[in-house]
Structure formats: structure tokens, C-alpha cells
């Protein structure tokens, strides 16, 4: 098992290295970062001077190594707008986004797990049909539109919930729900089909045959096995979760790092965008690594392989 984890560790480190190359490449998408970063009517000599000062005239591999060695130490350069190091600005917003993401996962699970379970246990009944409709709706409703409708209903008309900012847990409800919808439908659908598959397995018939109570069979034998693909999906959805957080943070004026990133993009504040993309990548890679480790617990075949 140690060898397995070590191998996954190496692999994920490699992916992270690749992410760093992409982040580095963001600066050079337009060709010349010096003229992109400076105001439009900067004189030619100033652009050249800036290019030299920033080291953009050095060979690309040298620049990348330089970028990498600094990035590893958490240095993504200065934010042009905030006049501060970029990474701390992003990190400062991280807790707010994590709270939002957790709220999103909470809403996603609280809807999708009961729906998926009920639909899987009652295949072909009206419960199954209702689930189908909910899943379909989850697939077709644009998150930003849902956010506006929620603001309209709960904020403007009913005045039940705050529609912007991050004061108290109430302000997490609406944006959290919007973030949750991004994975609600797929989780419910996967849990349903995965449960259906497990329930048709021989060991479930055996469990029933030896007289176990239905609830025990479902919870101890079926659910644990049906959960494996769902856990995978949840982990793979961290990217979606972060993307959904961007949309929700923008609509609800929630002070998280997604909104910061969108602002940085419109301000051409490259260092902040880079820090944000790198941090998101690191979070996704870490989740994948954790997932690999959780697998060894969920699926003993990996542990003893």
C-alpha cells in the first residue's frame, strides 16, 4: 500500500508541475506581457525598460525556472492593483470560498443522496420519475440565472435571506445552494445507477437469503459499495465546485477568491490570476490524492494489492 500511495504522490506532483507550466504560460498568451501589463499609450522606451526590469527578455526556460522556484516559495509577484504580494491577497479570501464550497457540498448531498437512494430503491415508481425530473432540471438551469431568481424570490419579495455579502450563516444559504446545484443532479443520478447495479449483485442476494433485515442489507452491504463511484464523482467535482463558486460569488457579491479572480481578470492583474489558478490547481490535486487514499479504505482490493 505504501508503494501505491508513493506512486500516486509522485504522479500528482507531476500534474502540479504541469499546472505550474500552464499558470506560467498565462502571462505569455498575448505574446508580449510587457505591453499587455502597461497602459495603452506607454512610450516604447518605457515598455522596453519595463520588459528588462521584469526579466521578460530572458530565455523562456530561464524565466520558467525562475517563476517555478519563486512559486514554490509562495511568491507569484506583486499584484499591480493592490500593490501587495499576490498570493496573500488570494489566501485571505480562501476561508470565505471554503465556507461557500462546504455549504455547496452540504446542499448538494442533502438533496442528492436521499433522491438517489429513494430512486434506486424504487426503480420505475413515481419517486423514480420525480428524481428524473429534478435531475433533468439540475442539468438545464444556468447557475447564474438561478441565483438571480433566488435573489428575486427570497431577497426582494419575501425578504427572508440576505442577498449579498458574507455576514453570518444566513448569507451562505442562497450562494451555497447555487454552488450545490452544480453537482446535485449528477450525484443523484450516479448514486441511483450505482445503487441499482450493486443491488443486482450476488452478495446482496446472499445477504437477503441469510435473513438479514432489509435495512441492514441496504446500509451495510449495498450503500458502502454504491458510494465508491459517488465519492469519486464528488472529488472530481471540486473543479466544478470552484467554478460554481466563481459564478455565485459574482452574483451575490460574496467576498471570496472567485470574485477576486474575476475582478483581477478584468483589471489584467495577472499575478493575482496566476496565484488563484495555481491555488485552485493545488486544491484539486490534493483532493485527488486524498481520493486515492480514501479508495484504499473503501475498496480493500487496492489495500491488499
Amino acid at each position: 500500500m505504501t508503494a501505491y500511495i508513493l506512486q500516486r504522490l509522485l504522479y500528482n506532483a507531476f500534474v502540479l508541475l504541469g499546472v505550474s507550466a500552464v499558470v506560467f504560460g498565462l502571462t505569455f498568451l498575448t505574446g508580449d506581457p510587457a505591453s499587455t501589463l502597461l497602459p495603452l499609450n506607454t512610450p516604447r522606451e518605457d515598455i522596453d525598460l519595463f520588459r528588462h526590469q521584469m526579466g521578460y527578455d530572458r530565455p523562456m526556460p530561464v524565466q520558467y525556472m525562475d517563476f517555478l522556484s519563486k512559486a514554490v516559495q509562495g511568491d507569484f509577484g506583486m499584484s499591480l492593483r493592490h500593490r501587495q504580494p499576490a498570493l496573500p491577497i488570494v489566501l485571505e479570501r480562501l476561508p470565505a470560498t471554503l465556507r461557500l464550497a462546504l455549504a455547496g457540498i452540504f446542499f448538494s448531498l442533502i438533496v442528492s443522496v436521499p433522491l438517489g437512494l429513494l430512486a434506486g430503491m424504487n426503480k420505475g415508481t413515481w419517486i423514480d420519475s420525480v428524481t428524473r425530473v429534478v435531475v433533468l432540471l439540475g442539468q438545464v438551469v444556468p447557475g447564474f440565472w438561478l441565483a438571480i431568481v433566488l435573489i428575486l424570490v427570497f431577497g426582494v419579495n419575501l425578504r427572508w435571506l440576505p442577498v449579498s455579502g458574507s455576514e453570518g450563516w444566513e448569507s451562505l444559504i442562497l450562494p451555497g445552494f447555487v454552488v450545490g446545484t452544480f453537482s446535485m443532479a449528477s450525484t443523484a443520478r450516479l448514486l441511483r445507477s450505482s445503487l441499482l447495479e450493486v443491488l443486482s449483485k450476488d452478495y446482496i442476494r446472499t445477504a437477503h437469503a441469510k435473513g438479514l433485515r432489509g435495512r441492514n442489507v441496504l446500509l451495510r452491504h449495498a450503500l458502502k459499495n454504491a458510494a465508491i463511484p459517488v465519492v469519486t464523482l464528488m472529488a472530481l467535482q471540486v473543479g466544478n465546485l470552484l467554478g460554481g463558486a466563481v459564478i455565485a460569488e459574482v452574483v451575490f457579491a460574496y467576498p471570496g477568491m472567485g470574485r477576486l479572480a474575476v475582478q483581477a481578470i478584468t483589471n489584467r492583474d495577472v499575478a493575482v490570476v496566476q496565484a488563484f489558478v495555481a491555488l485552485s490547481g493545488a486544491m484539486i490535486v490534493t483532493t485527488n490524492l486524498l481520493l486515492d487514499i480514501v479508495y484504499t479504505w473503501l475498496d480493500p482490493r487496492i489495500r491488499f494489492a
Partner: protein
Amino acid sequence: MAVTTTIELRPQPPPIQSGAGSGVTIRRRWRRAWRKETFAQSLTALIGGLMVALVVSASIFAEAISPHDPLAQEITQRLRPPFWMEGGTGANLLGTDSLGRDILSRMIFGSRISLIVGFSAVIVAGTIGVTLGMLAAYFKGAVDLILSRIADIQQAIPFLILIIAVVAVVGASLLNLILVLGVGSWLFYYRVVRGETLSVREEPYVEAARIVGCTTPRILFRYILPNVSASIIVIGTLFVPQVILFEAGLSFLGLGVQPPTPTWGGMIAEGRDYVASAWWLSVVPGFAIMLTVLGINLVGDWLREVLDPRQSKGR
């Protein structure tokens, strides 16, 4: 002499039905799909097809059917509610926006951007993803290793973030949107096609083609491609709606096709400031997005059931 022998021995490629896929099983699936009882079973697919037809024809005949010029401003008529509300008129069935432009007309014209971006980006993604997926699975080894690792790396970056960052840097135009969304989503095609090709490449007819000396491009495009085509179509129909949602999201963030060109996402964004006073500005265009996405999804689900061997029970 050797050359003639080769030609004589060249195996016949598997039978191909126009654009649909090939091989006996796939043709049977298509035929079963069109049989009356199967189609009636999938009433939802029919409804979905009608929705798609409605949106597609609206975008084609936009000039003819839209009641007003989508760009014409009439300040005296601004923020008119839809016809069913007090103050609404038949002249602007779905009301007017903050500049007095007709919302229905803007929705009709907005369908063009959504559909063009949705379908073109999927074609771009499919072309890249299918070609690379076949190459990776056919050659295995270093090619496969490098391409698959690139896909892994890209998957570690949130898609929306990557797209936003790239569009913000290269600039938002129709072509850029199509390219960025298309190139950005190649890996979804890549993964599926690679997986399917891995099994198809072991089939006897591929081996036979290789033995008689078919060139690699011929093997890939004449023998392997038709046999993975069913999956390609299925991913396409499931991915077009995704891209349409992404395009709407980008337009909503101000990174889509720029105003005054009407886009659904842009219309929703413009209405945000009027949520309290004129809710229909944002809410109504959302239904256009949902109608389109739902329609394509329903057709896609049906296609998947018909074409995807793993989904159908008859095998």
C-alpha cells in the same frame, strides 16, 4: 506483383451508413431507433426534438419572425412588462429592456450566438479530441503517455476559470469563444475515444488491415473511426448543451460576444440591476437557455440509449 496482391487482399471496410456509424450492430441500433414503437416509447425525445427544432428555426428565420429590430432603442417604451402583466402590450409580447429594446426579438436573435458557439465549439473539440484519442490508443507508448498527462493537467484546472482567464487575455469575439471553448474541452472527447479505440484496435479487421499494409491514417479513419462514431455522436449531443451554458455564463460575466449583439447570458446580466423593479429582464431570457438545453439533452438521452452499447439491454 506484390502490389496487386496487396490490393486484392485488402479487406473490405466495415459497411458504413451515411454519417451514422457503421458495423452491423450500430446499423441495427439505428434501425431499431426509427421503428415506430421505440420512437413512441421515447415521447420525451420527440418533445426534445420539437424544442430543438423551434430554437433552430427561430435562429434561422430570426429576421422574418422577430416583431422588432433587436437593436432598435425606444427610450419612451423602456422597461415595459410582458403582455400578461399590468401595463404590458401586444406590441412587446415579453416586454422591453432598460433601453426600450424588444425582449422577444432580442431572445430570437440571441439564439444565433448560443447555437453557433454550442455546435461549432463541439465540432472543434471533437476534431481535436477524436484525432488525438485515436492516435493515443493506436500508438500507445510515449504518444499515449504524453497526451494523457496533458489531459490530466488540464483537468486539474477548473474549466470555467481557465476559459475566463484565456478569454480575458485573448479578447472576447465569436471566433475566440468558439476556439477557446472548443480547444478547452478536447479532453472529454479524448478520454472516451481513447478508451473505445483501445478495444477496437484489437479487433481482427483492424489487424487484417494492418497486415495487408494499410497506411495508419487509413486504418484510423476508415476502420476505427466508424466504429467509435456512435460514442462521438452521443458525447456531442450531451456536450452541446454544456457549451451553451458555458457561453451564457461567459456572456453573463461580460466575457462573451460583446454588446450590442444580443446574447442570452448578456441579457440576463443587463437585467440584474433591475431585479427589484423589472424582474422579467433577467428571468425571461433564462427560459430560452433552459428550453434549448433541455431539448438537446432529451434528444441526447434518447440517442445514448439507442446508440450506446453499454446502455442498451438488448446486447
